């Protein structure tokens, strides 16, 4: 428990800031921007017609659904998920590369604690922060849905749509953990986390432009389709399975390396 508490203490401020930013963006997009979109449909459509369709696709705009609450949430979700992904991959990097960055692996790894327990404590601390963040996110999303007349969908659908963030974040968290464990050096957490999150964004944008089916499986922001979840209450099975397999594979690889890796003198 001491490692768990230590990691929570080291990360909670950062998590609080990211949560505040994420919630603020969710509130602004759904409470302020969506009504403007909804009320100004004609002008928005006219403006979008001026752009090539690939441009709108690259930024997650689907003209057919953008004016429904679910469609607008799906559009907003891409940007919320990018923010969430920066936080999640940064969290994985920060927690699992903490000793590597401070060059104090010796300190932790010569303590009488199995590496399995260290990995579990670190992972649990990070997951606690991700879950707490998403509890607030889900609560705010549900509150916004209740306050928005256009957001007519069963509670289950709303919940699943809101959970898309946590599930997407888990993929990025696992990526961050894997990089932290395998990389020889992690110079900056924020820079690496941004690169990971925006790398995923570029893959998603590329898939949206090319409409290449196979690319969808490499587009992390499409694994959990918020619009589909809002409409039907579930995600596309093949994509959800891909995300789950990828997340588990990354975490297992990181765990094996963490448990069996060697620590050389600095």
């Amino acid at each position, binding site marked *: 428990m001491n490692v768990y508490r230590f990691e929570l203490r080291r990360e909670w401020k950062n998590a609080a800031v990211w949560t505040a930013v994420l919630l603020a963006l969710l509130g602004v997009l759904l409470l302020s921007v969506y009504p403007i979109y909804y009320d100004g449909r004609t002008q928005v459509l006219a403006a979008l017609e001026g752009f090539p369709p690939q441009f709108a696709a690259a930024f997650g705009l689907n003209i057919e659904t953008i004016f429904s609450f679910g469609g607008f949430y799906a559009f907003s979700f891409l940007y919320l998920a990018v923010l969430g992904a920066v936080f999640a991959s940064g969290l994985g990097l920060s927690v699992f590369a903490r000793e590597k960055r401070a060059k104090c*692996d*010796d*300190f932790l*790894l*010569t303590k009488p604690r*199995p590496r399995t327990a260290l990995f579990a404590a670190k992972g649990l601390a990070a997951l606690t922060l991700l879950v707490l963040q998403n509890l607030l996110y889900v609560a705010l999303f549900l509150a916004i849905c209740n306050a928005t007349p256009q957001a007519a969908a069963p509670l289950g659908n709303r919940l699943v749509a809101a959970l898309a963030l946590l599930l997407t974040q888990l993929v990025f968290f696992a990526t961050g953990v894997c990089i932290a464990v395998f990389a020889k050096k992690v110079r900056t957490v924020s820079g690496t986390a941004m690169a990971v999150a925006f790398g995923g964004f570029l893959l998603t944008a590329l898939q949206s432009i090319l409409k290449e089916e196979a690319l969808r499986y490499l587009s992390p922001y499409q694994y959990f389709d918020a619009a589909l979840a809002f409409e039907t209450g579930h995600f596309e099975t093949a994509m959800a399975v891909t995300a789950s397999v990828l997340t588990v594979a990354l975490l297992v690889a990181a765990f094996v390396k963490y448990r069996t890796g060697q*620590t050389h003198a600095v």
Partner: protein
Amino acid sequence: MKAAIETVQLTKNYGKARGITQVDLQVQEGEIFGFIGPNGAGKSTTIRTLLGLLHKTSGQARIFGMDCETQRTQILEQVGYLPSEVFYYDNMRAIDLLRYSASFYKKDCNARIQELAGLLELDLNKKIEDMSLGNKKKVGIVQGLLHEPRLIILDEPTSGLDPLMQRTFFDLIQRENRRGATVLFSSHILGEVQRICDRVAIIKEGRIVNTQKIADLRKNTYKKVRFTAQRPLQGFALPGVADLQLDGQQASFMYSGDCNVLMSALAALPLQDVDVTEPDLEEIFMHYYTEQEAGHERLPV
């Protein structure tokens, strides 16, 4: 007496690169054991393999009879380790780091932290990143000793400590030893090992070249002798002379034995110049190394 540390043919390679080769060590419980060698000789590799930070290539390593890989966690409950270079987390006060360190052991270490910090004159409320190298080292010493370990492993522990603090540190280690702790003291400074150790192992290029009691090491104190004669030398023979090198009028060698015998032998020569000095560690290692390669008998253990 039981062995606190025992390695049998312990080998660690880094791919094709050499780490340590067939290291046989036996450190008895309750002794202060010196482990000396030049940089890159394999001291840290041996220690890191003992601590389970590196995986051995072959051989065996046991601490208190337990296997260093499979029973690593049980071993580490009884081990205090001070690495050669100390690094800790950013933005932490010394007291917070030490409390975190103490939280890994099943005992209350608060009084001990205060006692050690007082002894080493360490300000516990200061952030570690704002500390000098010497003070960081003190944090390392406290964190290595706060749980009263049965085995203390020190890897080049005195770097960064001023001479006064070094003396305090040696007193502390000797006090821990009187309490019953076994100490493995790695260093490349022969003098400091001679100061507190009971026995010493010399490692060079990954191999143990000699293990002997400090008392025997003192008895076999080597001098480095260089002299220039007034005419070309044909040879120079004297019991206790090793590594003799003749070059025209000049001769150099390592000498172990009665200094009066050496002086008499030199006085019989028509000398231009003579120089008798303490050999540096590298020369002692070279001496042991060449002696071993030549198949000479090892010094008594």
